């Protein structure tokens, strides 16, 4: 098990952790930049200052309690639905690929793609805002057309690692995917 620091597309520090459970099972997890205390306190103070300003204008104390309520609810929604803490990829040769995102509140959302549906894992380029970034994606097989691709599943969308980190992940995945090509010849 090893952990190495990298940078995301926007420059924030992230970490890649690799674990080899067995010859055909590997787990790769990318830890996203944590929630900054600075930005949290900046947003909270901005909302409360605005609420206090409204209170001074309208002399209605409901504004203050509403601001507190809104801040709390907003924080809970942000932590539970928006802020992703860690994204991991579990590749089990001959079973499939499992993609997990864990949120800051502890919630985990998992998708498992069977190996028969996976055509390949590739690094693609995309235009994101004003930049061109690299991203890793899984190509799914089209059941009707052996050469066709039915869907593209992008990985690590929240942490957006840079090319050096993606190349490491790509190499690890391809080593296991290669095994399924050589496997049918034996047994």
């Amino acid at each position: 098990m090893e952990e190495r620091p990298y940078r995301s597309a926007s420059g924030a520090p992230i970490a890649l952790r690799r674990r080899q459970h067995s010859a055909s099972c590997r787990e790769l997890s990318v830890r996203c930049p944590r929630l900054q205390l600075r930005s949290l306190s900046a947003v909270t103070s901005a909302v409360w200052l605005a609420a206090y300003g409204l209170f001074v204008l309208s002399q209605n104390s409901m504004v203050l309690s509403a601001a507190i309520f809104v801040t709390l609810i907003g924080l809970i929604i942000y932590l539970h639905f928006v802020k992703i803490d860690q994204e991991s990829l579990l590749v089990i040769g001959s079973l499939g690929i499992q993609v997990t995102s864990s949120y800051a509140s502890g919630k985990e959302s998992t998708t498992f793609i069977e190996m028969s549906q996976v055509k390949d894992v590739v690094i693609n380029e995309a235009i994101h805002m004003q930049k061109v970034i690299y991203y890793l994606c899984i190509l799914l097989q089209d059941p009707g057309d052996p050469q066709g691709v039915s869907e593209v599943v992008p990985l690590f969308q929240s942490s957006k690692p840079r090319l050096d980190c993606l190349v490491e992940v790509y190499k690890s995945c391809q080593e296991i995917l290669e095994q399924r090509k050589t496997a049918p010849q034996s047994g």
Partner: protein
Amino acid sequence: MVLKVFFPSCCSTAESGILIGRWISEQNSAVVLAVIHFPFIPVQVKQYLSEVQQVTKVSISVLGSWNNSKQEKEESLGEFLEDLGTIFSHEPWIQISKEGASKFWSCSTLQKHSNNPKEEEIILVYYDQRKVMLSHLHPPLDTAASTAHRADNASELSAVFDTVARSKVLFMTDRYDDGPIKLTHWQSDGVEASIIVELMKQASVPACMLLTFLLSLISGVCRSRVLKFWPLSFLWSKLSTCEQLRHRLQHLQVISSNKKAQNQTQLMRKANIFVSLLIDVALGMLLMSWLYRKNRIGHLADTLIPVADHVAEELQDLLQWLMGAPAGLKMNRALDQVLGRFFLYHIHLWISYIHLMSPFIEMILWYVGLSACLGLTVALCILSDIIALLTFHIYCFYVYGARLYCLKIYGLSSLWRLFRGKKWNVLRQRVDSCSYDLDQLFIGTLLFTILLFLLPTTALYYLVFTLLRLLVVIVQGLIHLLVDLIDSLPLYSIILRLCRSYRLAAGVKFRVLEQQDGKPLRLLMEINPLSYGSVVHTYRLPTYSCYPKDSWTSLCKKLFLGELIYPWKHKGEKQD
């Protein structure tokens, strides 16, 4: 190649024996269903397995041996288990052995006919047998349509789920049965059953028969010729309450039919309809108890007439305003007075009718309120119908205004063509040039001028009444939206997803357990439940109303030309 063994977690503590299950050769995986313990007679085991295979149509066979030794390794048992491989010939013969209380088992395979002596890697996947048996795997929504391609390369996981689900018969024997075969599976400590469920199953048969009988009576009455005479049938088609009652009657017929549900979808639909009806009636009873307490119905009836009067007075004020100089615009005096007086007379008639009905309103409302016990949706539909009846004069005014405006617009467009020397060719459906006589041109131009200068007056009346009509339509539409929501929400599926989330599976997730070098890879397979959005999308009940297919542009075009708009149409109604 990698060999996958799906092992039920309930058999981890079972005594030594042989493993039975299904071998899926295309995916090189073995699904273990149960463990048969010693002593047994191989012939009886084979006979039992063929019996089970006939009933379940799943090819169950002996897969290998299971050795659970509490103390040190027992050499003799190991050899005995290997010899069993020759009696039950299965390729490959899987041998799993567990020492003491260790978590890490050793797994090996015996291949007699293989020419490749390489050690293949083994993956041990633990699964919860009860949850996998009860769960229903939902394919992703986009591939559900292309099931034709799925047949040849069926997904591995659905094969595993299918195997366990179809082997229910195997799990019916427990260890208290006196038979030659002693099995261990998830129900081997005693078959699970619930007294309440059994009682309800027994009670449901006569209840369904009674309900079917009552429903056939009611539908016979509804279909009788008496109710099909013209004024009545027209009335039934216009009232939304009748539509809702018909819809609910259909639902009751679905529930009370004595045909068993063939597959999961039908079962869920029946359950959803049942729960939806129950909640509807419960909410309706609540509403009724609230209405009839403290004589609220009487208060409602008392305020109804003054409200209708108030609406009529407001309309009269509006018309007086239109007859004057509305918003500073100058109207054509004569036409204004004619239209204004015409509408005022209508309002006067309407108020007289309301006052004629006023002594009976309370009684009618009291009896109509009783029908809220049929469900909250029926009560909401009745409310929508009452609103429609009370604003009937607004509807009439809208129709008059729209027809007048429509006539004017068509007249203007036709005379405009005459003005330019053209004509509409009905045969060819196009505009052709035409030479008119002088007197035709003269009269045409005169009429065109008259219609053009009278346009603002008619347009204003049309605008005002259209806005009022749209307001009423929006209110009615909101009520119908609420009714549709209650009708189509699959409450049973949502509650099932909340309480027994493993029953509705979107897929699986694997968790890697502790590993030890040299031992096979250990994974735990858990069920990944369906998201709430997909649950609602998959199990929605169909409703009877269809929402307007007109886009905003066609709606605006219709409004501009003065065509009558019918925004809320029901399925099966003929388009006007």
